[in-house]
């Protein structure tokens, strides 16, 4: 289904909830200059409103002391900000060259047919918004999809249709390299800088991230030996390297003292410490 009217025209009237206004102001306080907060503020507006609404724009403008036109100019520049309502699940298919060649084009075509929507459109039940994406930095897992900006790696047309069916049916879905899929609005809140405390979900890395490391482990390959506790490196240091090494060894011996917490007060980092001395 296409939303062929502009919902911005009939945006909710009145002000955003007080709690939201308070949080929008709190974002501003994170930065030396409040205007830096505009991108996260717009993420928060989306998490509350389901899109960037006119009253959301007005609220940002009021708080930052800039015009609504300036806020709107920013909101329309970035593709993650949406002026039309987004479904519970934003489903992205990478169709940049590598993913497209590896099957992203086929997946995107299959999903358009399966969901009966076009690009950047939402299903009738309001559950899924489909969009084709540019490169999402997961090329070693191509073809890649994203659900609410969580990785869904190594997809096929079959796994893609299963994925959207599960999302629409309310079945729990887990990212292949991330957490249980939350709603788009919940995701936007995290992007606004309000953590949801779910960093511990999911793996450290997917298989492709570990493939080189696995080969190195198998064959006993390592980086050269680093400095030991005594401050020595492997190999024969050149003249400058030796000086450097002596210098950092000295720093390390000081570090040992410093590691005792009771000894730490007293400015190891000031300009008279060893590093400055070396230059003389």
């Amino acid at each position, binding site marked *: 289904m296409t939303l062929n009217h502009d919902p911005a025209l009939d945006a909710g009237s009145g002000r955003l909830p007080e709690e939201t206004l308070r949080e929008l102001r709190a974002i501003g306080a994170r930065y030396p*200059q409040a205007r830096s907060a505009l991108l996260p503020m717009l993420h928060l507006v989306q998490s509350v409103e389901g899109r960037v609404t006119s009253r959301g724009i007005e609220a940002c403008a009021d708080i930052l002391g800039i015009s609504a036109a300036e806020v709107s100019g920013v909101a329309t520049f970035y593709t*993650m900000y949406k002026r039309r309502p987004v479904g519970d699940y934003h489903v992205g298919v990478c169709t940049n060259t590598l993913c497209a060649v590896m099957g992203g084009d086929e997946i995107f075509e299959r999903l358009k047919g399966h969901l009966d929507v076009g690009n950047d459109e939402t299903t009738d039940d309001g559950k899924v918004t489909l969009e084709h994406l540019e490169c999402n930095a997961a090329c070693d897992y191509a073809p890649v999809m*994203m659900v609410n900006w969580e990785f869904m790696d190594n997809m096929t047309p079959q796994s893609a249709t299963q994925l959207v069916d599960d999302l629409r049916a309310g079945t729990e879905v887990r990212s292949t390299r991330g*957490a249980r899929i939350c709603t788009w609005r919940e995701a936007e809140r995290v992007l606004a800088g309000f953590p949801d405390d779910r960093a511990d979900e999911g793996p450290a890395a997917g298989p492709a991230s570990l493939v*080189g490391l696995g080969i190195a482990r198998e064959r006993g390959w390592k980086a*050269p030996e680093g400095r030991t506790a005594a401050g020595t490196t492997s190999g024969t240091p050149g003249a400058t390297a030796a000086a450097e090494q002596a210098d950092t060894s000295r720093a390390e011996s000081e570090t040992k003292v410093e590691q005792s917490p009771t000894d730490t007060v007293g400015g190891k*980092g000031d*300009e008279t410490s060893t590093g400055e001395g070396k230059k003389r």
Partner: protein
Amino acid sequence: MTDMLTPVLSDNWDTERPWTLESYEQTGGYAALDTALGMGQDAVIDLVKESGLRGRGGAGFPTGMKWGFIPQGDGKPHYLVVNADESEPGTCKDIPLMMASPHTLVEGVIISSYAIRANHAFIYVRGEVLHVVRRLQRAVQEAYLAGHLGQNIHGSGYDLELTVHAGAGAYICGEETALLDSLEGRRGQPRLRPPFPAVAGLYAAPTVINNVESIASVPCIVRNGAEWFGSMGTEKSKGMTLYSLSGHVKRPGQYEAPLGITLRQLLDLAGGVREGHELKFWTPGGSSTPILTAEHLDVPLDYEGVGAAGSMLGTKALQIFDETTCVVRAVLRWTEFYKHESCGKCTPCREGTWWLVQTLARLEQGKGSEQDLENLLDTCDNILGRSFCALGDGATSPITSSIQHFRDEYVRHLTEGGCPFDHAASTLFAPAGATA
């Protein structure tokens, strides 16, 4: 002679919950911070200069030299901004690093900020990677609680605030001055230089902007010394780095190796091009680096080697395409990307990329004429070097290099009245034995 692979940044990725502070400290994490605080700021800058570390975000500019440009004693606040907006097509190294071991980056941020005398640092991470944002937020929170961030870090008298800032979807924000405008709450459009960010960056104050991998490489250099770092890599391209293999290879993924390894060696480790197929073309460092072919398998993948072969090392994003891939289709898709991502500030890039798409789309459909190839090259000539930033330059790379290496294939589209390739044969789920 160093080993073929030298995991340093990726070395803890297979440990138990490596994203946690506890795990990171068990593998020696945050000891380099103590060392650095004991050395003094200028010594840290000197060490990074001496290590030969060069920017891992694509340009390869010496990191220590960049830091050295920051005026000292100027009474202005200084800022460190980490460019974690990884978006260059093919590039996929910073995201797994931050996912698996965000503290490596955070420790690097603290040491680097200390060196340039910054008291506020930012990690500008692209918004489209929710779980990476979660892990960064958590790591920063843990670092504050442990006293690695905040006031009087490790009793040194040094203070640092670190803010994780999520972007909102714009490739151009990976360009450092566009990133600064974006971080100031504006449309992400590049700035004219000079002044350079080292003099007038964030809030017009001296600012260093470094890629994630560059900053994440700092703790190991502080820990092991410049000589250790230089024992890996080549004369002018020192150290280890993450190479990302993707596309038509048996084992795509991250391979951390000394700079100067060749694609032949990497492909060998990766099990070669997928079964029954052969290498056709590849990018050494993302879509903005001119494509190379099987002729270039033995080019050392360092800044000088790839440069001498007529391309750029870029982000070491090795996208591998086999003979089933239509180069015209690939280049058209990249060009559509550049057109979409052009910020619109400079006319040659804004208008030029639009015309490139029109011309290429026609060629891909088998329409137009051979003269269109000359038109493409002429348009590229009018884009290259004529805009504020390198986005437009990057847009020309796949076009000029593909016409150089595969002119015949463009002509085949014209003589056959359309694309001669079966796109299904290129997919990961292509039936076995499918050919172009």
